[in-house]
């Protein structure tokens, strides 16, 4: 596990870069992604998530009332929990 963490792929990603990544996926700059959009990107692009991973991420990220993911808040929340 230590090795895996030390691999370059898992180097810490700075918050602002993470934010910009989300913004790329949200060109209209609404400040959020819809559930469908997030699912599409995470399961079809990059190194696709498994079904389980997708569900896990959604459970924490999604705002159940609007079915959207306000990514700025999400990032902030995860960062706190990490520390």
């Amino acid at each position, binding site marked *: 596990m230590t090795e895996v*963490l030390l691999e370059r792929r*898992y180097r810490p990603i700075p918050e602002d870069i993470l934010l910009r*990544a989300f913004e790329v*996926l949200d060109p209209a700059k609404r400040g959020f992604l819809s559930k469908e959009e997030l699912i599409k990107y995470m399961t079809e692009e990059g190194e696709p998530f498994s079904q389980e991973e997708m569900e*896990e991420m*959604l*459970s924490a990220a999604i705002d159940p009332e609007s079915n959207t993911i306000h990514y700025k808040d999400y990032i902030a929340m995860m960062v706190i929990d990490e520390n």
Partner: protein
Amino acid sequence: MGSGSSTQHHFAFQNAEKAFKAAALIQRWYRRYMARLEMRRHCTWSIFQSIEYAGQQDQVKLHNFFSYLVDHFTPSSHNERDFLNRMFTEERSPQDSEMEKSSDYESIEVPDSYTGPRLSFPLLPDHATALVEAFRLKQRLHARYVLNLLHEARRHLVQLPNISRLSTCYSEEITVCGDLHGQLDDLIFIFYKNGLPSPERAYVFNGDFVDRGKDSIEILMILFAFMLVYPKEFHLNRGNHEDHMVNLRYGFTKEVMQKYKIHGKKILKILQDVFCLLPLATLVDEKVLILHGGVSDTTDLELLAKLDRHKSHYHDSESERGTTFSPFGKKSIFQVRARLPPQIVSTLRCKTRKENKKPAEEKGKNNQMSSAGRPSPWFLPQSRSLPSSPLHPSAHKAARAGRSSSVPCSVAPDPKELSRQVRRSVDLELERCRQQAGFPAIEEKEEPVPSASEAEEQLEPTQEEWRQVVDILWSDPMAQEGCKANTVRGGGCYFGPNVTERLLQKYSLQFLIRSHECKPEGYEFCHNRKVLTIFSASNYYEVGSNRGAYVKLGPALTPHIVQFQANKATHKLTMRQRQDFSMNDFQEKKNQNYSVGGRFEAQMISRVEASALRALREKLFAHSSDLLIEFKKHDKDKTGLVTLSDWAAAVESVLHLGLPWRMLRPQLVNSQTDNMLEYKSWLENLAKEKLSHENIQSSLLETLYRNRSNLETIFRIIDSDHSGFISLDEFRQTWKLFSSHMNIDITDDCICDLARSIDFNKDGHIDINEFLEAFRLVEQSCSEGDASDCPRTTNTNSSACSSPGAH
């Protein structure tokens, strides 16, 4: 994709590429986060487990200490004899036996003002149900009913076989539960979720009902009540904690005395019997074997079925019951020795079992001092010293049988040489102990070793029988093939998949269900799904640390597992509200991996982690002096600094916990300049967290801390009448012997100071509970609130318990 001019095409392509990269980045970040979460969970678990096992090793060391006294200490004076008798003898006057025989509970009056549950015998199912409800409402059962119930339980248990048999023909579904450890909430939930016991709903509770949790006695009452009400369908197996010696250390004795005060003693006494009389295993459909710990390569079910688990030890004229056999017997060794021929004395046993790992690799370090082998004293599985010296050729069999004596020792290539060496060093050490304790020197004769006489064998459980019982109560499965001594626990063995397979084949079994080990999910399969560990105490180490689980068997004997995790809301449920039972009150997950990405999980892990780290810091503090010595070794130039890898090495060599120190370092240390650590100030900061007693110096406090559970156990042993007090003198004598045996360096003055400072009201007696309370308060003040509330030093240089952004 866009159509049209090539520029648009190019643009669109670039966008797609950016999206791809962005998604990849987010996924990378998320996966790293999850990996880190999993690692923290794993680390936290390791911390708790290693500390728990280290505590069990302490218990073993304590036993070794008493072994010394028992085997090598011949009282030479009236004082000495009195002192040791106080510790080891159980006073048994004729009146006591009279009392025990008859209805000593009938004389206890229940006042009219008592509002708790009342029992009448024979018990009816409604009574048992009412008992559950009463305890859920936090009522307490009056001592009279407790004793009555225990008497009835004993009468019932006496006629049970060692191995209970259940069949799915009669009870269609059988539910097996693991360790409960005094956690009443979990038991209530299980009955809730799964239904109360009934002729159609059989239950097997697989040991360790008591200790650690705060409602052990209530759990026992419920379990015994249902056992009496549904004797065919409700079965109990004995666990290693159903043992009064273990109870002294792990809290059950204390709980009973606190809850029942004057009657507590009676209750504890009858419980000793009751525990001994618990069946050892349960067999379902002759196919599934359920027992608490595990098996060994010599486990013999026929022998286990035949042995007399409540064999009388000696038939006193005073008491027809004699003493019952228990892995931790209670008969005074002095009484034992008085009856044995003078030649039988302490002998030395060596483990002959192969140890695959070198001692250094094992998580729990062997107690490698002169305790290379000794017979078990009265409170260890064997109630007498047995002649099984390796010097005696015919004792080879017995020597092999001594494998699982509670003494961890390294394998001796040459038993003769080892025993000679050990004997020599043991004598030397004994001499030192005696001198330190203020006893005059005594010439210890070398006594020859004869073989056991027949008469003795009839009176007591044999070595082999004892070992078989210890094996099934204390063993743990391991991944590697083979079978080796369980040095971590100090009893039983580690058994590999081939041992399991052989046993299953030998007795035509399908699989094994056992408990004994806490698992994060409440259960775990191993050995190719032939061994199932089931553990029913959720949040065992800490709130959020683990789930509990129980397993159901139907006629097909396919295990169906149900998991759960208690939270505060449990007690609000009533038995009648089963229908309205809300998912919010209990997290119930069925055989699935729970969702890890949720925020709740992350917070849970953080909280449990903080608790584990607190426990770890406490342990570090308790070993401050040793750590300092170790650090200095790495700092030959006396710079006051060590590298962080040196730090990790030093810490491991002192604590022997086998933890990933490098990973834990950020939580334990604020590194100074360039990855170097100022170790002295780091240690000082650890101390400042703990220091609260002005009277007791830091080093003393540290020693006390490290040994506090040993101290508590010693106290309770000395305080044989459970009065809650021991005299200063007794404490001093015991502490002297103990500290010299454990190589704790304390001067005579220090011991006197220590004793006097513990005697808070200066009346020459130490109130055990007050003394322990002092520790509890220190712990509490540190653990109240978040880690950030820990008393911090005002020293701006370093702060041992903080890391940036600690929550």
